[in-house]
């Protein structure tokens, strides 16, 4: 007959695991780190003067936000919900309008072929010192959304799948067709 093994007293196991649990509850936080990824322009050397780079007016989409959090797109008061569509129209310039950015033709290789795209477009975001941060993030968000939608449409057209499902190489190729060009003006002091 097998010898009976005396049972190990495991009643304190629960206490130990409770202790661990409480330790983790206290030291960790629930929130995930996510955010709107942006890239800042490189600094201007101090000995160099700020030049007004000569950008053709048609290639420029100016988005201004004032201290009352109102939005002005190309000199017109606009609602934030419309900004994405406006930006998409501006980046695409489907009808080759003279007031939208100049179109360039370029061969992007298979499977794209020759595509007309606006190489030189720039979206300029200008904000006031008193603009609310949330509104600024909203504007940035809408502009990034415009690019993301265009890239996704392009991926679906040529690869028949979403942009996020593509491998890195193809994503980079689409990024070349729709390069993200959101410029942020050098901060200016308005008034003295």
């Amino acid at each position, binding site marked *: 007959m097998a010898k009976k093994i005396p049972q190990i007293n495991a009643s304190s196991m629960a206490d130990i695991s409770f202790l661990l649990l409480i330790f983790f509850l206290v030291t960790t*936080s629930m929130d995930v780190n*996510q*955010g709107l*990824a*942006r*890239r*800042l322009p490189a600094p201007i050397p101090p000995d160099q003067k700020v030049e007004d780079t000569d950008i053709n007016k048609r290639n420029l989409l100016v988005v201004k936000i004032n201290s009352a959090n109102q939005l002005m797109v190309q000199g017109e008061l606009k609602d934030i919900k419309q900004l994405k569509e406006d930006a998409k129209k501006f980046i695409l310039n489907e009808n080759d309008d003279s007031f939208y950015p100049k179109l360039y033709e370029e061969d992007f290789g298979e499977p794209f072929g020759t595509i007309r795209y606006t190489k030189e477009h720039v979206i300029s975001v200008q904000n006031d010192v008193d*603009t609310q*941060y*949330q509104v600024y993030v909203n504007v940035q968000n809408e502009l990034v959304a415009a690019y993301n939608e265009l890239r996704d449409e392009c991926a679906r057209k040529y690869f028949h799948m979403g942009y996020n499902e593509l491998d890195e190489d193809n994503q980079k190729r689409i990024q070349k067709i729709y390069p993200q060009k959101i410029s942020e003006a050098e901060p200016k002091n308005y008034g003295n």
Partner: protein
Amino acid sequence: MAKIRRNDKREMPALNTSSLPDIIFMLLFFFMSVTSMKEVTYKVQFTTPQATELTKLEKKSLVRYIYVGTPTAEFRKQYGAETRIQLDDAFADKSEIGDFIINERSAMNEQDQGLMTVSIKADKETRMGVISDIKQELRRAYALKISYAATQRTSY
């Protein structure tokens, strides 16, 4: 007549608690997987703005944080209710951001230095003047990869 016995010696059968540790461990593992370690203790309070086009910050070791908000209640007496910047565990002036970034970067591996991301965790009510100042400081310190920390928005 029935006798009422004060000292009833009948023993309660012991409750079997052998599965209790397993349950607690399960809870423990759940919390370990869904939560992340707190970076610092917050001295400023902030609610991050909402956005839809969010990307996750992948490598935690490459991310440095700048907190912007109003001081929490316990520091309000000392520092007032104006918007303040917090670096690591202390309040800081915007002029200290450059040094902070350079210090943090030099502490990194050489191949990681170019990949450093600065996450700006700011309150949604913050005025852009403060944010612009921070951005200028970051540019000067060549910390060009930034991320505006935000929470997922479900609808307008």
